[in-house]
């Protein structure tokens, strides 16, 4: 079981998908207008990730290598469709606020990335725990960004009013919400500062002579990282160099 806890630690801290690997940026920025939305999106992705890791790991000896990417995509898309129906049926308010981004879990780099780099090479149990770890890491990342944006943008966290709002009509002083933080520009700004904080920590660690944590992350997003799930071809053309 030591291996399983190691996988969860790896997903939460060492290779945190949001802050270290910088994967799955589209939902990270789009749905984090409130902490609740962030957690909802994170948990939906976790469910898809765990189930797809499990199934792909079970099928890893059956799926031929040359058609593995289309096979992975079909597996992931099926689970996403199931999750979409469950949300629509049981949590309609969350379904409405996440909207288009639920079906777009299919193209989230984290899921195909884990399928390609971990689940297709490892046994079922570690793959499940890898999915749980990565999913929780993603959820924590989204919740952190959502909390910061919600707190500055509305003065609340998880819908609970923390900072008392100013009321000019009643002459009551208090917090004036900075609405731009729950609008699109706020998403970029909060993420910029969180990544900068992390860089700062890395630089400090390097100055003290320690090895920087998670230096393997691809800082430039999916396009430049070597992960073949992100940049690879879905169907092999047979004339690659």
């Amino acid at each position: 079981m030591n291996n399983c806890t190691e996988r969860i630690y790896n997903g939460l801290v060492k290779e945190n998908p949001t802050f270290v690997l910088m994967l799955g940026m589209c939902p990270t920025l789009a749905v984090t207008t409130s902490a609740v939305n962030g957690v909802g999106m994170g948990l939906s992705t976790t469910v898809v990730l765990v189930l797809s890791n499990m199934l792909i790991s079970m099928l890893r000896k059956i799926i031929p290598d040359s058609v593995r990417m289309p096979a992975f995509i079909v597996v992931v898309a099926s689970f996403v469709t199931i999750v979409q129906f469950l949300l629509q049926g049981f949590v309609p308010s969350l379904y409405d606020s996440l909207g288009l981004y639920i079906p777009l879990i299919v193209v989230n780099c984290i899921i195909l990335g884990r399928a390609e780099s971990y689940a297709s090479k490892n046994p079922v149990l570690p793959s499940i725990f890898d999915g749980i770890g990565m999913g929780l890491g993603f959820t924590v990342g989204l919740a952190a960004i959502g909390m910061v944006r919600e707190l500055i943008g509305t003065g609340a966290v998880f819908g609970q009013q923390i900072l008392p709002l100013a009321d000019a009509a009643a002459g009551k002083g208090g917090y004036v919400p900075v609405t731009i933080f729950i609008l699109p520009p706020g998403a970029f700004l909060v993420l910029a500062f969180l990544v900068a904080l992390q860089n700062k920590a890395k630089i400090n660690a390097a100055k003290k002579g320690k090895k920087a944590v998670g230096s393997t992350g691809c800082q430039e997003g999916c396009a430049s990282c070597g992960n073949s799930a992100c940049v690879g071809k879905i169907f092999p053309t047979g004339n690659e160099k």
Partner: protein
Amino acid sequence: MKELLIIAIGSALVNNVVLSQFLGICPFLGVSKKVDTAAGMGGAVVFVITIASFVTGLIYKFILSPLGFEYLQTIVFILIIAALVQFVEMFLKKAMPPLYNALGVYLPLITTNCAVLGVALTNVQKEYNILQGVIYGIGTSIGFLIAIVIMAGIREKIEYNDISESFQGTPIVLVTATLMAIAFCGFSGLI
């Protein structure tokens, strides 16, 4: 005609795909170091989204909808897009080598660009017909082209600036994106 114009302008500027819908962030951050490559990527995206919104529109209208298989749309669309990208790549290689040399490198990257799937799904969600869907696709992808080229232009300029150590790399790019997003908020009164 007026309605189509509103769809085109609305998708290109007002609801810009990158800066207000957050689709296609990965190439926006990853392939925006030089104006040339950014324009190449943008061109490839325009090409693929236009074709993809047409093909997925046809398939939805004439195959999925009459048979009652609407719930399969996510699975079917992603496979169509993946196959289409590779088909376009092979076709360009044979038929138009100059265009292939300009766009070829970026084509495989587009499959995982969520803007393509996003456009296909939005067309269904908003119940656009095929013409409206294609116009929406063209508008969205031109919005992507505008955003990524502007971003690349700014990044070429800030490359030589003295940026505080912890903001180098991704953070300063994200701050730039913030300012661009604020500027694009100004378009919201346009329609």
